[in-house]
């Protein structure tokens, strides 16, 4: 690492300017009024309205996590224990939520569960899922149960069969066996994936905003309304401080649980799943697997199909009218730009985010896994914290930080990209870390001993080996940038409208058809991301 410390400058400066500085300005805004004050915090905490929202945010996150576990654990079991025809396909299906923008899924839910929705008509009753906590929980489960399947099944495959056999020979069976022997060994996986789910739901924005209606707001939505509608930065900041504090506490437990998880995953024992052929699929066990697969398939696919179908129906008949409308206008008054501009912006932001966040994550991951130096613990924490910040909080921080010189960046397109970068970077970091961890450090040393300088050893040996993870990380970054709504909405000007903002605007104007048509375009872009990840992406599984 001689002299190579220079590469640390980029992540340090970037994170300082575009994460820590905004964070400081929020704290300043919320705790400062000609001197330190707790006035706004107390104002928020003593209002039953805000308290209700804080409580609901935690409750819905708990509920979502529970639903996610209920949906994910059977999948984890099936994936760990069985090999069956169609498993690969099911795996691929489970990757879909990783890349599907939440605004599109929210629209799908509206089309499914609304009063005229497909699902409502199918069962002939309105279950009042929409604009309710039920829709929020379902949508959150949609996004998170694949994580549970992945993380828990990985541990389940490693549970040493001898433990179970030993316990059985001692007389434990059935549920007792599971509770006393198997479950404790799965706990690190269940805990880590639950924490991740919980944080996601605690900070999620588009889903409660669109599916929660007026009654069911979360802290994230509350901050958004305080700032964008009421223009009350003080209260918004106080809320943000509460949110950050809570989410950092959750983050702490998440990171602890990840350590446990990593240790449990190191176990060498790896049982190959039992193979089920077509005939065995017709046994009770097989039918249960088919049933679960079907539920998963329908659950993931139906919001997408609903959107696709809706975009193709105009006044009761099949037609491309919505697409024609969406594309024909050179200027759409609903979002103040043309659709082509919105697509261009989304792609521009997406690709720039790829470059920035991948570079950032690559350097940070490399330092995390390859370097030892004093204060590395602090470095580890500082680079992980962006995971615990939400889009809206970041947007608020940017508004407070970059509205005046010397950093008057508000209204520029690259400030939006910087926000996307901060939001996407923790996920890119995770993808790259996963592969870098697997590359043994002595490969680099072998290269050094053969005469390669540090950078050459990196370029010729480590980079090619990490490429899969880097590409997957880059695609994540792209998918997240394309899907981002909250921060973008707070920072954009009409000429920087993105596809998601246009969809949001259409939703606000209750133009479902136009929203669907645009969503399909978003879906196509996401599908490309999906295919690339599927091709290279054993890393995320």
């Amino acid at each position, binding site marked *: 690492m*001689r002299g190579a410390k220079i590469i640390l400058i980029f992540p340090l400066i970037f994170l300082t300017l575009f994460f820590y500085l905004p964070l400081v300005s929020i704290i300043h805004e919320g705790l400062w009024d000609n001197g330190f004050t707790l006035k706004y915090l107390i104002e928020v905490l003593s209002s039953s309205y805000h308290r209700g929202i804080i409580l609901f945010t935690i409750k819905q996150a708990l509920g979502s996590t529970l639903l996610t576990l209920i949906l994910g654990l059977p999948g984890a079991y099936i994936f760990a224990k069985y090999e069956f025809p169609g498993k690969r396909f099911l795996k691929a299906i489970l990757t879909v939520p990783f890349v599907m923008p939440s605004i599109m899924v929210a629209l799908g839910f509206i089309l499914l569960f609304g009063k005229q929705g497909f699902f409502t008509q199918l069962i002939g009753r309105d279950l009042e899922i929409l604009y309710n906590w039920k829709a929020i929980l379902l949508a959150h489960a949609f996004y998170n149960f694949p994580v549970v399947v992945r993380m828990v099944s990985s541990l389940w495959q490693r549970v040493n069969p001898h433990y179970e056999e030993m316990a059985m020979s001692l007389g434990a069976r059935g549920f007792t066996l599971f509770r006393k022997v198997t479950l404790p060994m799965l706990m690190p996986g269940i805990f880590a994936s639950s924490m991740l789910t919980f944080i996601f739901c605690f900070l999620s924005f588009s889903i409660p905003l669109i599916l929660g209606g007026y009654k069911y707001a979360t802290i994230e939505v509350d901050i958004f309304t305080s700032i964008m509608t009421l223009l009350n930065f003080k209260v918004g900041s106080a809320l943000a401080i509460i949110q950050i504090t809570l989410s950092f506490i959750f983050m702490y437990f998440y990171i602890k649980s990840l350590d446990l998880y990593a240790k449990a995953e190191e176990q060498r024992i790896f049982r190959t799943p039992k193979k089920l052929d077509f005939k065995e699929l017709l046994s009770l066990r097989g039918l249960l697997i088919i049933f679960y697969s079907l539920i998963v398939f329908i659950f993931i696919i139906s919001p997408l199909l609903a959107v696709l179908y809706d975009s193709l129906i105009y006044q009761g008949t099949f037609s491309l009218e919505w697409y024609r409308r969406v594309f024909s206008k050179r200027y759409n008054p609903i979002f103040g730009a043309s659709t082509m501009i919105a697509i261009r912006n989304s792609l521009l932001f997406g690709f720039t985010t790829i470059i920035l966040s991948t570079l950032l994550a690559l350097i940070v991951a490399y330092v995390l896994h390859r370097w030892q130096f004093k204060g590395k613990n602090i470095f580890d924490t500082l680079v992980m914290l962006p995971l615990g910040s939400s889009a809206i909080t970041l947007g608020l921080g940017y508004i407070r930080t970059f509205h005046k010189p010397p950093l008057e960046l508000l209204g520029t397109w690259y400030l939006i990209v910087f926000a996307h970068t901060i939001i996407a970077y923790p996920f890119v970091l995770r993808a790259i870390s996963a592969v870098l961890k697997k590359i*043994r450090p*002595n*490969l680099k*040393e*072998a*290269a*050094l*001993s*053969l*005469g*390669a*300088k540090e950078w*050459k*050893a990196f370029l*010729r*040996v480590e980079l*090619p*080996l990490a490429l899969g993870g880097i590409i997957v990380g880059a695609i994540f970054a792209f998918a997240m940038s394309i899907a981002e709504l909250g921060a973008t909405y707070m920072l954009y000007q009409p000429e920087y409208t993105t596809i998601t903002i246009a969809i949001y605007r259409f939703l606000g104007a209750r133009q479902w058809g136009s929203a669907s048509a645009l969503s399909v375009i978003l879906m196509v872009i996401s599908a490309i991301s999906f295919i690339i990840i599927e091709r290279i992406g054993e890393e995320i599984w």
Partner: protein
Amino acid sequence: MVKVELRNILWIQGDFKLEINRLEVKEGEFLTLLGPSGCGKTSTLRIIAGFEKPDKGEVIFNDKVVNEIPPYERNVGIVFQDYALFPHMTVFKNISFGLEMRGFSKEEIKRKVKWALELVGLSGFENRYPEQLSGGQQQRVALARALVIEPELLLLDEPLSNLDAKIRERLRGEIKRIQRELKITTIYVTHDQEEAMAISDRIAVMSIGRIEQVGEPLELYYKPKTEFVAKFLGLSNILEVEIKGKKAFVDDYFLKVETTREGKAKIFFRPESVLISKEGIPAKVIGYELLPGRIRLKLEISGQEIIAERFLNELPFEVHAMPDVIKIEILPKDITVLK
């Protein structure tokens, strides 16, 4: 060829401390670092290679201090325990990597890779990937990759420990052959004493964090300086004695020793040095074990246990008619007084 010296090396990593006051590897010599797991063999090698910087002391190649020279300029060939072959490169690419770094022309690279592959007996494997090779073949590729750059020093860190016994024996012969052929200074790490004895010009026996003794295999085997070395190589006997004028007393009996020391001491001898005779010290037989053609006797001399090993046909009595007490003798030249 290079002469390697370590001087006053101190390397601290957490609560592990490595201290080497002096270690010299002569030009063209095959030196083995032998020691138990975790004693610092790999760390020593990594310090010589330049992957670790000593906190104190000098690493010297041919009288030149190389502490500040990065690994890629030291011209040292290394074979790691797990080979560290680049998984995304073919055998050819792996071996040519170091040559490319040195800017050789395409033709030269081809010629040299061919030479290296012939040297390790792997011609024809150029286009395979490491995962398509057996453990032994991977090991040879790693060796070829380290040798092709014509290093002045070859470092081998337990290169055979991942292979099964048969291949291990064959490959260690080949490593020795190649080392002789190329006359390359070599430092070899192992914790297998048999391997060390078989292959080395000299052995440095290490205990936790330090070098106990350096010497030729037989010298270490028969003349260990410390109890640690004595116990580490083969079976050993150590007796607590009282020396008075070249006589080492155990209770009332004594063994003749060649020493100028007086007073309490520990003496050492090998099981095969224990002779069974008519005269000598009485020893109680507390057990025996038959080995192919040999017998290992467990004896007791006034409360201290020793082992004797003899060929069966040397026994002055039948195994079935083993007496309870026998008389033993050890020649003074076979006894070492330990520090």
